[in-house]
């Protein structure tokens, strides 16, 4: 595969410690396009070895607006379905540039390890130093050890290590898009984290036309209904959820985007610093990045103050447990004390409604939506590598436009019929 790809699939066997590589066959792209289309194909191929499959979308890391998503595919311990969770912020992009398009992680390591994926190389490293540590300490460790603060980390905390089905895979210090218990899958494999860093280069088949089309899309998005909107509260309200601006905004420091995503879907809040501060804070951990709407809605409904709720979210991210599940179970138990909620994390158990029943993580389920239309949009996002929340907000990114861009970028004839078949293969519908 010559364009928009590194042309490499890694097969990582944690049991034997062997790592092999395969080329990304152009025929596979013609048949499955990319992202979840190919991760599902690889999952099925290695199913007997209980794999976790990472993959980038065909347009991930490009100038197509919203090109932030890579995907993790595995069998969810909460739904028992082969499912897909997104990883965004800058981690999806970093995977795309790491030198691999897809990565199959199979088998179980005898001792705790982490994967270090960079510049076309994947290494299995000893994780003895970080096993038992929380997510934040693990991220700090790997960045300090490698001497690079820009390493993107998909990792687990103590929840994942203990095998809790509510364990989530965090992206760096923050809650990721994993509502499906994938953190426990990493824990069972003795895999503490995956560190990603890439300096790769993606060739484009028709660069001028591709980039011009991307620029037109950016212009359309900027002048569209999202104009001037920013942050997690406005995004929630735009998608039909409760408007939480009055609750969140007083502690908001700045609104932050995932990679090349025009709408900043995340809000950074300061609990231990003046939110109006412009200079670099002298406090080491002044706040938290809000990435997930659902637990915010629940904690607000339970009567927690914004500051208390944000501190609970921070505690959940450090422990590596899905905050939406924590909020749901705490509400059901009538536990509305932030201190008691944090103390209960190790005892909480599923199942939880917050896992949903789709093959896609319900992280991007916001407001009152048509389930079929939502699932279709998620599938398309996960195939092409588009931020799943931005995709819901941005009608400019039509399926026809994404197919046009994919064809311009790769020189492959990708049709609506192929896309329909790939979506059906992923969703089973």
């Amino acid at each position, binding site marked *: 595969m010559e364009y928009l790809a590194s042309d490499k699939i890694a097969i990582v066997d944690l049991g034997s410690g062997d790592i092999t590589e395969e080329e990304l066959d152009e025929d596979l792209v013609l048949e499955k396009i990319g992202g979840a289309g190919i991760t599902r194909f690889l999952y099925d191929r290695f199913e007997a070895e209980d794999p976790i499959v990472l993959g980038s979308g065909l347009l991930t890391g490009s100038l197509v607006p919203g090109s932030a998503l890579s995907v993790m595919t595995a069998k969810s311990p909460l739904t028992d379905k082969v499912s897909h969770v997104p990883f965004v912020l800058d981690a999806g992009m970093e995977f795309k540039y790491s030198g691999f398009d897809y990565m199959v992680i199979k088998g179980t390591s005898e001792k705790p390890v982490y994967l270090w994926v960079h510049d076309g190389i994947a290494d299995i490293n000893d994780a003895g130093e970080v096993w038992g540590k929380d997510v934040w300490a693990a991220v700090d460790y790997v960045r300090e050890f490698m001497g690079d603060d820009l390493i993107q980390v998909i990792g687990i905390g103590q929840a994942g290590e203990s095998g809790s089905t509510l364990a989530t895979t965090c992206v760096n210090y923050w809650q990721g898009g994993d509502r499906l218990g994938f953190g426990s899958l990493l824990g069972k494999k003795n895999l503490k984290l995956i560190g990603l860093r890439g300096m790769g280069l993606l060739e484009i088949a028709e660069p001028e036309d591709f980039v011009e089309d991307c620029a037109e899309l950016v212009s359309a998005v900027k002048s569209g209904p999202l104009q001037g909107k920013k942050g997690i509260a406005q995004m929630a309200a735009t998608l039909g959820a409760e408007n939480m601006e009055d609750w969140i905004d007083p502690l908001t420091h700045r609104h932050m985007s995932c990679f090349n995503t025009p709408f900043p879907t995340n809000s950074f809040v300061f609990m231990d610093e003046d939110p109006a501060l412009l200079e670099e804070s002298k*406090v080491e951990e002044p706040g938290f990045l809000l990435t997930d709407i659902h637990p915010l809605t629940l904690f607000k409904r339970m009567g927690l103050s914004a500051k208390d709720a944000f501190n609970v979210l921070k505690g959940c991210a450090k422990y590596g447990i899905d905050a939406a599940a924590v909020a749901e179970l705490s509400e059901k138990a009538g536990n509305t004390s932030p201190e008691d909620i944090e103390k209960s994390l190790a005892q909480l158990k599923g199942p939880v409604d917050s896992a949903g029943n789709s093959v896609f993580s319900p992280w991007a389920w916001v407001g009152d939506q048509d389930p079929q239309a939502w699932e279709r949009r998620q599938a398309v996002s996960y195939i092409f590598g588009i931020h799943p929340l931005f995709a819901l907000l941005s009608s400019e990114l039509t399926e026809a436009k994404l197919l046009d861009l994919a064809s311009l970028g790769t020189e492959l004839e990708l049709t609506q019929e192929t896309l329909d078949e790939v979506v059906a293969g992923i969703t089973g519908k």
Partner: protein
Amino acid sequence: MGIKIDGLLCTACMACELACGYHRDDAFALLSSCIVPYRGQEKKNYVGVMLKEEDSLVAARPEGVEINRIGEEQDPDKEADASAKPMLLRESCDLCEDLDEGPLCIKFCPVDAISME
């Protein structure tokens, strides 16, 4: 005439960095961009934009713009940003002189944090 950056408006999406990389390499890459959001203080959410110009390194911080002349001795009491050294090795901004419509970073910035002055 040059590029003006409002570091406070920036949401660190990196579109400018990728657009600049494309201008340099005719491909998608981030290694040669002369405009880079700095993201090294993630836990503190301290984010701005760095630009390599012919004679200077511009740091558009949230609290204001700082221009460091390349080659001049810096304040020894001030801690250098870890990302500053690789920036000095990169080509300077040429304002995308081969493009009629002007710099690509401006075109692709979704929040209009970059403009011409």
